[in-house]
Structure formats: structure tokens, C-alpha cells
């Protein structure tokens, strides 16, 4: 990677703006890297499959059945993905509401990740809609189904994307050298922050609430009446686990963009986040124990589903919980990183179980995704990574803001 590439700003005189845009569209790094060579064909194939899907219907590329109407695009990209985007609201809460300035260096990375995650997950959602053009019915109110949890999720989703855009917009203004716009956008951040956190918490809960209606279909080990609350707690430590992994990667890959204070700030920040993860995972685990005893779920322990449940809970919740705790106590970054990866696996397992694997286990035909569905799922995430990289290479996400913007926050 060409590490000397200077980062440009628009010159703000107006006459060169077009040139600036054209210039910014060009790749800033070497084109033929291993990552590009592997991922580009997958993305192109994925896009081709998406076109085919819109021409010939869902059945042409997916294995959806009448008993399993939601496949991996919803289960993996949306239901799992939303938990991974939770880091944005948690960090915004920590830095903006609680004024813990220590975490400022990673705030923009977390918000950018949340914003892109939400945009791409709604994209995956549209792929799975049978009649995607009619999605506007929800917005224009061709009859509002206000008692529907999905309706609430949809509106909180849309408004939260707007809040995330506002929260990230000062960085775009810095990139474009739009000083007056920057002042305005930085001024309304608090409004976006307060409503953003509210919208985010509620729709994280709503994703869990979706499956409350599927009583009798989701296996009792995964179904309970506290699903909305459990999904919110998951989004705290799941989101932070992704932020920990993301910061670790970004601080390596884009090290040349960081200034000295930011570089040094990383380890204390990760240790702090590990503490939050350990505590929230403890409350999550403890709630699982209470529900387990309360619902007398030990009757399932002899079955395969019982073992599957224990596999989810012990190595991927209890073990990383203690690893976070010791990582926090001993300030061991390596331990924290491993714990973050295990936690993410746990979140994926739990949400895939709820929405797919332990869903409708009596169905005559089990749903197994086609290779095409898996390629599209991966493509959506890869495109997100490409866009993330494009933005990080251009806007002040990891590096500090230009001098004129300092002190405005």
C-alpha cells in the first residue's frame, strides 16, 4: 500500500470542485492487492446474481420454502448484522452523553461502521422482499400497520440511518472543506445523538420482538418473552466486540494515517471497552440462566438441541466473558481480541439459531441456503468493506480533523 499518498481536501474556491471529485474517485492505493484480486470477482458474481433474482423472482436463486420464508439474507445480513452495528450507538452514548473523552479517537470509526452497516443491511433486506417496489407503502402510508413490530422496526431503522448520517456528516463537511456547513452540522449533533440512541435501542429490541409472534416455531431454548431485552443487551457487547476487532484491524492497516496521540490511545480504549463487554455479557448470561430455570428448559438438555445450546453458551458467551474480564484486569490486548472474535461467533450463533436453525424444526423440508445466496450474502459485506475503505482513505475518520475544524466539537 502506498503509504505516502497525501490526503486531499477540496480547495473551497469552487472552480476546482469537479476536478477534486474526479480525483477522489480514483483508487488511492495499489489496485492489484491480494484482497482486491480475491474479493472483486465475488462482488461481481454477487451483483450478477442480484440482477438475476430481480428478473426471475426469489425462487430462482434461493432455497426458500413455504415453512421457512426467511433465508440467510434476512437471518445473517439483517438479524445478525444489526447486532454488529450496535457499537455506534454505544460509543456515541459513551462519548457524547457521558462526556468520556477518552473514547473519542475511535468514535468516528464506530459511527462510520454503524452507518454503512445499516445502509447495507437495509439493502440486503430489500433483496429479500418479494415486492421491493412496494416498500414505499410503509413510508407513504398506503395504510400503516401501526400494531406491527416490523412497522416500528422499519421506521426506527429509517430514522436511525438519518441520525447516523447527521452524526457522520461533519467528517464529510471536513473532507469537502465546507466550513459553514460544518459548523451547522456540528451544532445539531446532540439532537442526532439523543434521538439516535433512542431509535437504535428500540429497533434493536424490535428485531428480537419480531420472533415473539413465532411462538411454537422457534425452539423453546431460544424463544422467551424477554427476547427484545436480550437483543438489546446483545447489541451492546456484540457491537463493542466488532468495534474492538475493527479498531485493531484499522490501527494496523491504516497506521500511517494516525497521529501519535491516537496511536497511543488505542490500548487503554480497548481495555475500557473490554470492561463494558464483560459486565454486559454477565447480565446477558445471568438472564439466560434465570430464563433457563424459570422455563424449566433442562428437559431439553438430553437432546441434540440442548448440546447445541450449550455450545453457544459456554465457549462463546461464558469463556469470552471471563477473557474480557481478565483482559480488562491484566490489560492484555491479545486476550481482549480473542474474546471479541469468540463473542462475535456467539452472536452469530444465537441469532442464526433464533431466526433460522432452531426455527420451525418440524418443517418437512429443511431450508439450506444455495451457494448463490451465500455468495450474495458475502458480496454485500465485501461491498461494505470496499466503501468503508474508500471513505477512510479520503475523509478524516482515523486521522485528525483539519485545523479549522478543531475545537468546534
Amino acid at each position, binding site marked *: 500500500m502506498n503509504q505516502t499518498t497525501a490526503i486531499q481536501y477540496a480547495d473551497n474556491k469552487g472552480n476546482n470542485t469537479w476536478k477534486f471529485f474526479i480525483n477522489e474517485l480514483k483508487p488511492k492505493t495499489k489496485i492489484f492487492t491480494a484482497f482486491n484480486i480475491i474479493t472483486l470477482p465475488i462482488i461481481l458474481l454477487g451483483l450478477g446474481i442480484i440482477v438475476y433474482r430481480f428478473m426471475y*423472482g426469489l425462487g430462482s436463486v434461493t432455497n426458500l420454502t413455504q415453512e421457512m*420464508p426467511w433465508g440467510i439474507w434476512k437471518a445473517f445480513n439483517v438479524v445478525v448484522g444489526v447486532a454488529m452495528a450496535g457499537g455506534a450507538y454505544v460509543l456515541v452514548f459513551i462519548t457524547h*452523553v457521558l462526556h468520556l473523552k477518552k473514547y473519542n479517537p475511535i468514535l468516528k470509526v464506530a459511527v462510520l461502521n454503524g452507518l454503512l452497516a445499516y445502509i447495507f443491511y437495509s439493502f440486503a433486506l430489500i433483496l429479500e422482499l*418479494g415486492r421491493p417496489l412496494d416498500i414505499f407503502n410503509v413510508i407513504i402510508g398506503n*395504510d400503516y400497520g401501526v400494531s*406491527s*413490530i416490523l412497522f416500528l422496526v422499519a421506521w426506527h431503522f429509517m430514522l436511525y440511518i438519518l441520525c447516523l448520517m447527521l452524526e457522520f456528516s461533519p467528517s464529510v463537511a471536513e473532507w469537502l472543506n465546507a466550513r459553514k456547513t460544518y459548523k451547522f452540522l456540528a451544532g445539531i449533533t446532540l439532537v442526532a445523538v*439523543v434521538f439516535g440512541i433512542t431509535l437504535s435501542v428500540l429497533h434493536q429490541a424490535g428485531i428480537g420482538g419480531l420472533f415473539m409472534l*413465532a*411462538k411454537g416455531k422457534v425452539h423453546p431454548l431460544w424463544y422467551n418473552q424477554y427476547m427484545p431485552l436480550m437483543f438489546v443487551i446483545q447489541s451492546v457487547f456484540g457491537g463493542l466486540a466488532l468495534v474492538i476487532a475493527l479498531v485493531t484491524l484499522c490501527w494496523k492497516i491504516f497506521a500511517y494515517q494516525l497521529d501519535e496521540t491516537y496511536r497511543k490511545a488505542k490500548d487503554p480504549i480497548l481495555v475500557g471497552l473490554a470492561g463494558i463487554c464483560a459486565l454486559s455479557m454477565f447480565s446477558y448470561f445471568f438472564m439466560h440462566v434465570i430464563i433457563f430455570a424459570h422455563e424449566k428448559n433442562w428437559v431439553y438438555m438430553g437432546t441434540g438441541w440442548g448440546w447445541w445450546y450449550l455450545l453457544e453458551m459456554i465457549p462463546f458467551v461464558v469463556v469470552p466473558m471471563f477473557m474480557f474480564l481478565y483482559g480488562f484486569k491484566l490489560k492484555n490486548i491479545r486476550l481482549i481480541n480473542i474474546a471479541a472474535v469468540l463473542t462475535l461467533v456467539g452472536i452469530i450463533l444465537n441469532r442464526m439459531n433464533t431466526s433460522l436453525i432452531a426455527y420451525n424444526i418440524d418443517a418437512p423440508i429443511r431450508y439450506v441456503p444455495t451457494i448463490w445466496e451465500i455468495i450474495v450474502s458475502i458480496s454485500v459485506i465485501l461491498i461494505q468493506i470496499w466503501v468503508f475503505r474508500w471513505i477512510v482513505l479520503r475523509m478524516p475518520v482515523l486521522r485528525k480533523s483539519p485545523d479549522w475544524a478543531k475545537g468546534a466539537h
Partner: protein
Amino acid sequence: MSLNRRTFFKFWGVAGAALAFGKSLEAAPASDDGVELMGVLYDASRCVGCQTCEFACADSHNMEFPEDGPSTDIKRSLDPTKRTVVNWYNLPDGSEGYSKKQCMHCNEPACFTACLTQALYKTKEGPVVWREDKCMGCRFCMISCPFEIPKAEYDNNNPRIVKCNMCYHKWADSERPACVNDCPYDALMFGTRRELLDEARKRMLENPDTYHPHIYGEKEAGGTSWLVISPVPVEQIGFNNKIQLKSYPTLTKGFVSSIAPVDLLLPAFLLGLYEATKVRTQNTEEEEL
């Protein structure tokens, strides 16, 4: 639904009955504006599995006639080409049992609560219908339905949700559901839900040996418009008997009603935290200075 002479009379007939027998009607399920819920009683002891209802249904909805037939070996299920199916079952006593499956038209349908555009719509007369111009194809109705009735056309790029609509499109012409009309053995009966429950109890009272004493749909999922009586427990002829008796919307009622208060109160709480911690930080900064 346009108001013609027949529906006009039907409405006033029902209203007149309501006035005359006001007390007995109080407990009868009715929608908010006093129109009584209509339904169908299916008597499995009279059914012979002849498939006439399937053909009548396909004809009524301009769909292709079913090509397969029921047998005790194969259990046919509803799919986008079939709004109703008949199946044969081997009973424990060695005889054969029959069952007809279609949408149960719940009094408080899970699909209606789940649908975010009200594409799946509970009409005031009882039938739950699908409205094409509103549906965005999210298939949350399929996730939520405890009877697993709505089916999606996956091989269509603008798929429809297919399910029984109790021939609601023909009600304006005072036509009964096609399957009820054509059933040669009188296994299906159309009427108000109250009449049907009375009729079901009457049949059970008069022929206690013929029927298993359970009206499927009286309480299941909070009550359904489609009622089933049978000589054997209904799970033996393929009905899901593990359905909760409370209506499904009650599962999410608490959560849905908590959303608006949280939307209003959480921002205030956050602003309070913001102010409280701001003061503290300033103080510590001053102390440090």
C-alpha cells in the same frame, strides 16, 4: 364492498336479530361496529375426502385445478396453487379420517398484527383477506401464522401471498364460499360464528358417540371463524393442537405499547445524563487546573 339490496337486507336482518335477542348477543364475538363475524363449520365426520371443495375453490379464484389427489400415504400441503387441500389419515382404530385445511380466519389474526402495511386485512365480517396493492412481500405473515397458512409465490418476480379468503370477493353478490356451495356431503356450513357454535354443540349433543367433544377453533388462537368438529381428536387428522388459546397479538401487545413511551422518555433521560455529566467534567477540569 358495495351495498346492494341483498347485503342491505342481510345487515338489517342481523341488526334486527340483535335488537330482538340483545342479551344473548352480548357474549357473541362481533367486530367493533356490531357486524357479526361470519364463519364456516367443517364437520369431519361427514367429509369423504372427495376433493370437490378443492375444485370449487380453484374455479372460484380462476386457479388451475389440482392434479394430485389425496391418499393416506401422502400428506398434501397448501401451496401457492392451492388455497385449500383435503387429506386422508389412518386413524388408530384402523379406519380412515379426512380433513380439509385452509385459512382459519382468526378473530384476532397474528398475520394482521404482523403486517406492516395492512396488506393482510381482517374484514369486519370475519374473513382475513390479502390486498395486493399494499403488500411489499416481506413474508412476516408467514413467520407469524401459527397455522402456517399464507403461502408465497417464489417463482414470480412480483409474488402474491396466496391464502383462503372465504370467497370474500363474491360476498357482494350474496354468494357463499365456493367450497361450502359445492360440498356434496354437507360437511361444510356457512353462517354467523354464533350460529355455527350452536350448531356444533347441537350435533355433539344429539350424537355424542359420533363426535370427539372439542370444537377446534372455538378457543384456539383466541377463536377462529373456521370451526372444526371431528369424530377423533383433531391432531389425528392433521390439525395443530398445540396452538395457544390466547390470541397471538397478545404476545407482543406489551412490547408494542411500550415503544411510544420509551421514544418520548429516553431522550429526556439522555439529556439529563448529558447535563449531569457535563457539570461533573467541568468541575474535575477546574480541579485539575
